[in-house]
Every structure is written in structure tokens, then in C-alpha cells.
């Protein structure tokens, strides 16, 4: 099963500049692992040492923040829209 993942500017160096990529998996955790397989280094930017999504990164499934769903265990299905969004905007 494949979903589209929107990638913010600061992570595009891992995706060869692509602002949207495909990823496989049945939940967000599996998607992150799949992204790491295809774009090595991206997981460390998204997750802290304990494997949780970093506090300044928001992940949305169809517009809903996974913190208010089941975090990394949030299920995804074919056609879902996933967005990785920096929690803040840098630069004044």
C-alpha cells in the first residue's frame, strides 16, 4: 500500500529536492521506516533518540495531527495524504 508524503523544504536535501514522495506502510511508524530505507538520514531528523517524533515536527494524516490520533501507531490507508510540517517557521 502506497501513500503520498509531503516533504518540507528543510528535509528535501534527503529526497533529492522532491516536495512529495511515495511511502509504503500501514501506519506512520512503518512509513517513517520506509522513508528511511529510501532516503537515508531522514528518520533521525524526524525522530528523537527514543524513536518518538521530535517536538518541533508535526505529522498530519489527512490534516489531523497524529499527536491527537495514535501518534506513530496511527493507521494509514491507500490514498491518505501525509504531511510533515515543521512546527514553527524560522526567521523573523
Amino acid at each position, binding site marked *: 500500500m502506497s501513500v503520498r508524503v509531503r*516533504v*518540507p523544504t528543510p528535509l528535501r536535501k534527503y529526497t533529492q529536492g522532491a516536495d512529495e514522495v511515495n511511502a509504503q506502510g500501514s501506519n506512520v511508524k512503518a512509513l517513517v521506516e520506509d522513508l528511511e530505507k529510501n532516503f537515508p538520514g531522514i528518520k533521525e531528523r524526524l525522530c528523537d533518540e527514543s524513536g518518538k517524533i*521530535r*517536538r*518541533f515536527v508535526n505529522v498530519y494524516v489527512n490534516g489531523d495531527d497524529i499527536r491527537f490520533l495514535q501518534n506513530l501507531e496511527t493507521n494509514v490507508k491507500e490514498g491518505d495524504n501525509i504531511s510533515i510540517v515543521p512546527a514553527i*517557521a524560522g526567521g523573523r
Partner: protein
Amino acid sequence: MATSTPKLRLIQSPSKEPKKAESVLDFIGDTPLLQIRRVAEGIPTGVRIFAKLEGFNPGGSVKDRPALRMVQEGIRVGKLRPGKTILDSTSGNTGIALAMIGRVLGYPVELVVPANVSMERKRIIQAYGAKVTFSDPMEGSDGAIRECRKILEKNPDKYFKPDQYFNPMNPQAHYESTGPEIYRQTRGEITHFIAGIGTGGTVMGAGRYFKEVNPNIKVIAVEPDDALHGLEGLKHMATSIVPGIYHEEELDEKIPVSTDDAYSMVYRLSQEEGLLVGQSSGAALLAALKIARKLRSGTLVTIFPDFGDKYLSTNLWIGWRDRMAVGNLEFNI
């Protein structure tokens, strides 16, 4: 947690009388300087760290200074005149400052803001009656810069764009006010000036002043350690549109700070100093402490750009008690 009662010392500006003002804009500047004691415990005894509390500006941040200076200059040279609208891109504090100044001086204000700035910032800007266009959060503040350029190109005669990233009046504001105030407040004893980079205005402008009055004063910039960070207001220069006013060669040093460490410092400031500040203040103090530990003596001054009330809805405060426990910050709350 320390139980001693430090003698907090606010160094006042020379004015003895309470200020009288014709407008709220007269309260911009002359902010207090606070010695950081508890969080700075353990640094060499000859070293002192002070923070300039820019949250005391009427718009709530350091950005009141450059915003006012840019608008004043626009009026002086005739680029801003009745009938014109002030337009700029901002991730928040400059927007708040411009919205406030526009109201006082009678100019409409339109701002382009990345959709992912804190909810409080958006609401404050709107509460001043400014028009806000939200840019793609995936593109950050650079996306807002580009969106703003498009709006200007469509209607160039309608707008006055202060263009804080390229306007020399941005650093000039700090050259004329922030720098001299700090020099006076430390009685000329400042040895190190440490400030975060957003546009670079503060570190460039105040830094230039310090180098003129005493070339031995070190000027040090603080920036996020990674392109993907959570330090609202700060820019990771290597991966950003570099502001035209930013000249890295004028800096003595640049210190990278991790988001998690800066957040921890924000928690320490609220718990140990009773000072609720934004993320960029945490980053600034962390950098100041790093420098302090390497010195035998010195008077370090850093900028706390704003207070923390604008960030209460942000991820900064998600799980902060757990973080403090895990981080072993010796809190007792």
C-alpha cells in the same frame, strides 16, 4: 532547586522620572537589563551574564525597534505617504510591531505569514486589524518572502515594503538604540555580545556599535544547529535565503544551538528565574553559558527577544515536565 535568594539587580536607564508619552511608540526601547544568576550558577566567578528583556517593548518584542526605524525612514524619504499600505513578510514579531505602528500612524498593514507560526502571533496581528495572508507552511519563512514579493509585483504603487531582510534601517535601529543602551547599562564593561540571527539586524547593528566603541568586544551570533528546527524566529543561515543586511564576516563567532537544549533552557528560566520567555531567548542564554564557561572574567550580554506568552500553544510546552525529568535538570516541582 536552589533555595538561596539571589539579589536580583535591575540596571536602570538614566531616566529617573516615569516616562510621559504622546503615543505608545514612545515606549519603544530603553528596556531593562537583568543579571541571570541562578541558571548561571557554576560559571567562573569573574564572569557575569546579563539579558536584555526586549519583551518590555510595547509590541512585546525586540522587533518594535527596527519596525519603527524602517517606517520612520520610509516616511522621511517619502516612500511611505498617506494612501500607501505597509506590506512585509514576517514570522510574527515584526508583523506585530508593524501592525501596532501602522495603527498609531494611520497606515493600513498587510502581512504575509507562514501558516505554521504560533496561533498567538496570528491572533495578535489580527487583533491590531492588520490583513494577514498565510503562506505555505512547508516553505517556512522563505516561502513568505517569496509570496510577499509576488503581492508587491502585482501592485507596486500600492505598497511600502519595509523589507526587513534587506533594509539597512533594521540594523541601524540597533546601532542607534540597542547597542548604546547596553553599553550604558553595563557602564561600558560589556566584553561579549551574543544574539540570535533572525534577519541578523540585532547582531549586525548593535555589533557594529560595540566594535566602534571598543573593538575588543566580541560579537557572537546564535543559530539553530539544523535546517529543521523549533526555534521560532531564528534562521539557519546555510539553508536559508541569506538576508542582505547579514554580513557573517563581521562576526567573531557563530554558535549552533539544538532545539531541545534551547527548550530546556526556557524551562529553567521559568522555574529558576521566574522569567517566561520564548524559544529564541533559551537559545541565546545557552550560547552565553557556553561562552561563559570558557572565560576567566567577562561581562556577557545577550538579547531575550520576547516573553513566552506568545508560545503557550506551541509544541514548546508539550510534555515539558517529562522532558525536565528525563533531562535531569534538577527541578523540584
